[in-house]
């Protein structure tokens, strides 16, 4: 059976080099570009006519916007409207990346930890810098839960610091592992289908169900990524 991790291999489509660094246009870059073009198409064409009764494209663009705006409003609280574009950019990128990967022969760039780690580290840096700017030195009060006895500080502060530092790691590994595990599972069952011959109808049935589940996971993980981003952004607004 073929190694199920081969599907994540990156191929060079257009080899390029700049000052000794490999900056080739790969299949990963191709799908990032397709994601970008699709999002731009959806929002430029969808909002170009501005009909009172929205058509399909305008309707989906509006629904995506309202969904994100409500999510940020509910989770980041008062004064968070300025973060809607930031969260929406991340949400749409992850959403389109996950869903494009489900198309046969497609490539899931979110199944590479370098992509998700770069995204979540960017979110982490943005949250820390904005919190330092808005709260100043009061930002560090966040690491001590209000109302806890002072004697507990030596125990509580390391735990809180650790859980804060682990945020980008858990955020990136969650998305990457979900995408990778799903695709590995699909490929394993596809291998069983071929190996079993006529009895392969059983794993084939399972693949159909699993594909449905993977669509759910792709949408859910994009939602969770954006939801956690807006929850983390809450720390930059509210004093603890």
């Amino acid at each position, binding site marked *: 059976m073929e190694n199920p991790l081969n599907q994540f291999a990156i191929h060079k489509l257009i080899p390029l080099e700049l000052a000794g660094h490999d900056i080739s246009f790969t299949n990963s870059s191709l799908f990032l570009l397709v994601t970008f073009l699709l999002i731009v198409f959806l929002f430029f064409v969808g909002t170009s006519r501005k009909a009172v009764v929205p058509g399909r494209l305008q309707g989906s663009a509006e629904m995506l916007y309202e969904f994100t705006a409500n999510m940020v409003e509910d989770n980041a609280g008062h004064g968070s409207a300025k973060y809607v574009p930031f969260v929406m950019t991340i949400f749409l990128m992850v959403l389109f990346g996950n869903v494009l990967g489900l198309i046969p022969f497609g490539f899931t760039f979110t199944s590479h930890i370098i992509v998700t780690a770069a995204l979540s580290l960017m979110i982490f840096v943005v949250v820390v810098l904005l919190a330092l700017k808005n709260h100043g030195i009061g930002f560090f009060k966040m690491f001590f839960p209000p109302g806890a006895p002072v004697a507990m500080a030596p125990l509580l502060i390391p735990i809180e610091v650790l859980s804060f530092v682990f945020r980008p790691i858990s955020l990136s590994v*969650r998305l990457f*592992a*979900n995408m990778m*595990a799903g695709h590995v599972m699909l490929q394993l069952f596809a291998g069983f289908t071929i190996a079993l011959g006529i009895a392969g109808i059983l794993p084939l049935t399972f693949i159909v169900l699993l594909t449905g589940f993977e669509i759910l996971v792709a949408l*859910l993980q994009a939602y*969770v990524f954006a939801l956690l981003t807006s929850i983390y952004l809450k720390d930059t607004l509210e004093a603890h």
Partner: protein
Amino acid sequence: MDAASAKLIGAGLAVIGMGVVGIGLGLIFNAWLHALGRNPSAAPVLRQMGFLGFALTEALALFAFVLAILILLNVL
């Protein structure tokens, strides 16, 4: 015991965590269904928190899976 079989046993031990996460997910959906049955009008809030809890818990199972894969592929 040679290193190759120890590696396979280690990968097997790493995915035990998935079983424990199964218990955790069961508890989440148990509480979710109980809450929905008692107060159906709270469904929108419960859906959001339920999915968040589901995703946070499921991530732990996937960490175990990733560790097992890393052990099997000689990365660690």
